[in-house]
């Protein structure tokens, strides 16, 4: 499942646009008209893609802790683009390798993290748009590793430690990183934390013990951790706010097949 780092990286990354600059509207229309007249639909589609700019989605997330403790606060960010029947969500992640981490380790972390992120989050939700034109989009997700223009910068440390959204460890499990990227999607933790009033006990409103990827999957079983409808609904709400369009989230009927586990190293002979 490993892929060359070069295939997964691009630079600079987009707050606006990383491909060629957008055509001025009138010029684009003129070219499109010509291509339509010529019947070259493939070229027309390519030009239409070039003229599209992804929408940047950000949200200030906050969860209060009890008195005397600081809050849990972060800004989630990613971009979305609507292509055909897909809503393509992408996180541009910049990995900053700390001392003691090899390039091979970095590439391995990138590869297994993307596979697990897609296993958990890709093709799990449908977004139904209401309004002038009703349409249904499949929410596809991706993480793109960039060297600039990142939505999130992540320090990659050697060995083991406590991962969070901006700090990963080489020996941590990839499910934790899929969980942390869930925070980058604007999702809150769902495990019991006595320091957080909304999650202070097992019956608190913010706690869910239904094999949520944002919950305590360490106890419930890491392999069973999955995305939940409430996650899709929160993501949809943030996309609505950013695009000015109205979407309703539902679970995808046919989830994408699970990614195969990373190949085990061949035994030494």
């Amino acid at each position, binding site marked *: 499942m490993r892929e060359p780092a070069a295939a997964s990286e691009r630079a600079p990354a987009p707050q606006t646009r990383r491909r060629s600059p957008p055509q001025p509207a009138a010029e684009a229309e003129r070219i499109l008209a010509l291509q339509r007249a010529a019947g070259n639909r493939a070229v027309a589609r390519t030009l239409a893609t070039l003229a599209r700019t992804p929408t940047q989605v950000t949200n200030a997330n906050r969860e209060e802790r009890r008195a005397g403790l600081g809050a849990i606060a972060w800004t989630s960010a990613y971009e979305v683009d609507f292509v055909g029947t897909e809503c393509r969500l992408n996180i541009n992640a910049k990995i900053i390798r700390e001392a003691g981490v090899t390039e091979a380790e970095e590439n391995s972390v990138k590869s297994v993290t993307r596979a697990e992120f897609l296993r958990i989050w890709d093709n799990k939700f449908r977004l139904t748009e209401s309004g002038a034109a009703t349409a249904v989009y499949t929410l596809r997700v991706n993480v793109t590793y960039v060297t600039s223009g990142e939505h999130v910068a992540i320090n990659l440390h050697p060995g083991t430690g406590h991962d969070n959204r901006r700090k990963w460890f080489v020996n941590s499990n990839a499910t934790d990183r899929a969980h942390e990227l869930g925070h980058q999607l604007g999702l809150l933790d769902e495990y019991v934390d006595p320091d957080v009033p909304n999650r202070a006990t097992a019956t608190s409103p913010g706690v869910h013990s239904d094999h949520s990827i944002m919950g305590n999957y360490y*106890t419930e079983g890491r392999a069973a951790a999955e995305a939940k409808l409430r996650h899709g609904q929160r993501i949809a709400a943030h996309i609505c706010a950013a695009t000015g369009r109205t979407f309703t989230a539902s679970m995808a009927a046919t989830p994408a097949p699970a990614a195969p586990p990373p190949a085990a190293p061949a035994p030494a002979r």
Partner: protein
Amino acid sequence: MSLEIPQPFAGHPDLTVEITTGTEHWRAGEIALAVGGDGRVEVLNRRAGEEQRFSGRLDASDVDALGADVAGLRLPGRGGDTEPDETPVLVAVRRDGEVLSAGEAWDGRRYEDARLDGLLRRFDAIVSDVTGGRLPYGDEGPIG
């Protein structure tokens, strides 16, 4: 305020250093390490309503090294905003159960504070040794 502990720590069998990290319902749970001046070591792990205990011993030089790590350490508290999943760290020095000195911080502080990082590296090493590598990072799933 800095933590206070008489030096050398191994000369004070009535004293205990307690270092607690984690939270009960996330990852490996809450892990509490207690090291006495006489070298006794106990690790209590609370996880999702269950608990497990481990015990061991440190030699005098390791006890003194831990005491030196703690002496004068300034912990800034947990007042600042954090990322999700941040881990609490609590350190206390007790004499016969009574708290003489205590402080707390977020685990992420260790990347800005070499002394805290050194103490937590020692914590990791002692816990790993006493638990046979099951903690603080290697274990998961329900206890028992």
